[in-house]
């Protein structure tokens, strides 16, 4: 229906829209000048500056800690919540799913403000714990959503069979159910991590003055015009790092398939 040329054209347009800003930032991370409109020569000093700019370095560490904690908590909770939802009577399911999907479809700014209002009414002091709570809040629904389809495919008798064969309730879940829905759990964990590490708006509303993640750090620096291009360097490391990891995984899984065929 589409010619080969128009197919590649549309793919290229899509990829250009996504990659142009990333490439610009990557170029600037090697630029010796502070000003983004002139190129003074190649440098690696911004890569060093990631470690010397204390506030940036802390923000990066915070981002990773929050993302890891949020991922672990939301994946664990989400798995058990999904297990419970799958056992619900059909008539309750739509309501529960509606509640679950609300944070996903809600605009970030509304979620952020909602959490800010409720946290301040509850008297929480804003900082890392409120931000973590907020991240767990918006990550968990994604985990639930990615696990539920896997549970649907699961044979209803698998759990009973495990119990008949002598497993305890706990063993049946750990040894039979969890391995069967493993892909859903991993997908959910990855989505949770991605959402958390890239979040700006919700973090902005739920953190206190002393605690920032990478996004809120950038935003505050942009408005104060004390931006450090080391942030470009960090972003480039992340993109290149994930690219290499994905290429590695892809090559490895191809190798695995070859072995299987042999």
């Amino acid at each position: 229906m589409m010619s080969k040329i128009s197919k590649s054209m549309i793919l290229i347009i899509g990829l250009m829209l996504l990659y142009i800003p990333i490439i610009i930032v990557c170029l600037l991370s090697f630029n010796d000048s502070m000003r983004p409109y002139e190129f003074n020569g190649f440098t690696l000093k911004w890569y060093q500056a990631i470690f010397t700019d204390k506030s940036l370095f802390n923000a990066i560490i915070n981002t990773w800690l929050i993302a890891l904690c949020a991922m672990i908590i939301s994946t664990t909770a989400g798995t058990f919540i999904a297990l419970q939802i799958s056992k619900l009577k059909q008539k309750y399911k739509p309501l529960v799913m509606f509640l679950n999907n609300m944070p996903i479809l809600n605009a970030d700014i509304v979620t952020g403000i909602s959490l800010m209002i409720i946290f301040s009414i509850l008297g929480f002091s804003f900082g890392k714990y409120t931000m973590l709570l907020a991240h767990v809040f918006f990550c968990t629904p994604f985990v639930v959503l990615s696990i539920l389809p896997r549970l649907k495919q699961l044979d209803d008798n698998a759990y009973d069979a495990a119990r008949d064969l002598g497993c305890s309730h706990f063993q049946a879940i750990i040894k039979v159910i969890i391995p069967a829905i493993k892909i859903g759990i991993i997908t959910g964990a990855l989505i949770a991590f991605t959402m958390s590490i890239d979040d700006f708006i919700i973090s902005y509303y739920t953190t206190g003055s002393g605690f920032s993640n990478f996004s809120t750090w950038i935003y505050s620096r942009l408005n104060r015009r004390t931006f450090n291009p080391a942030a470009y360097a960090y972003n480039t490391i992340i993109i290149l790092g994930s690219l290499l990891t994905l290429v590695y995984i892809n090559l490895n899984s191809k190798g695995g398939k070859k072995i299987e065929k042999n």
Partner: protein
Amino acid sequence: MKTPNIILPLYLIWLIILVFIPFLLMIFLAFSHTNGLDFSHIRFSLINFKEIADPIYFNAYLNSIILSASASLLCLLIGYPIALIISKIKKNSLRNIILIMFILPMWSNMLIRIMGWEILFNPNSILNVLGISLDLIGSPLAIIIGMVSTYLPFMIFPIYTAINKLDQALIEASYDLGANKRQTFRKVILPLSLPGIYSGLTMVFLPSATNFALPERLSGGNIVLLGNLINSNFGKTFNYGFGSLLSVILITIIFITMIFINHKDKDGDLLI
């Protein structure tokens, strides 16, 4: 599993506390005149409703609708063919690589990506080396490009999932019954991928209209969208009443969309 578990009721209570109680509070705040969350001087008032109709805000409403709608439409026009092309790739490894290429940019920080465009759109940019000056900052086009670039993956993936879920036998049946490629697309593939399209449109439109950082950076503060309006009322002027009213309207729109999407997409798996 027969053992009753406490975690689901707890989760529902948690969702109600964090979603619906704030929503009720916002409705309450929308009908009151207050400064911040200071409940001691709170009084009933319809001042926020008067403020929302103030013509100085019309531009923000109009901008939000026009710019976000254009971005959503562009995302659909670019994203649908891409989703279709990816789903038609037969070789697994090639398909995975192209899928990954569309996921990878999401791991770059959103603000950094917006800054990338900002740097490019400035009259003085790296492009001056080539003798080009885009000078787009402050133009609606800059904001639309920024939105499409930021949210395009959110259009591609729901549509891709919807097309992938489609029963191949239906497409074969359509060919067997004499339909050509174009007819098969129009009468089989397109209607069956509509849930993905609805999902994608929502996932692009709402964030576009409410992301306050994007217009701030790409318009130099000249173009104000709904998100900026809400943000400035909560963050700068502490006019929580007006900010709440805007949020309540937004939530109502989201509710209606959700009911619509829930109706079209029973499994709910097109949201991710």
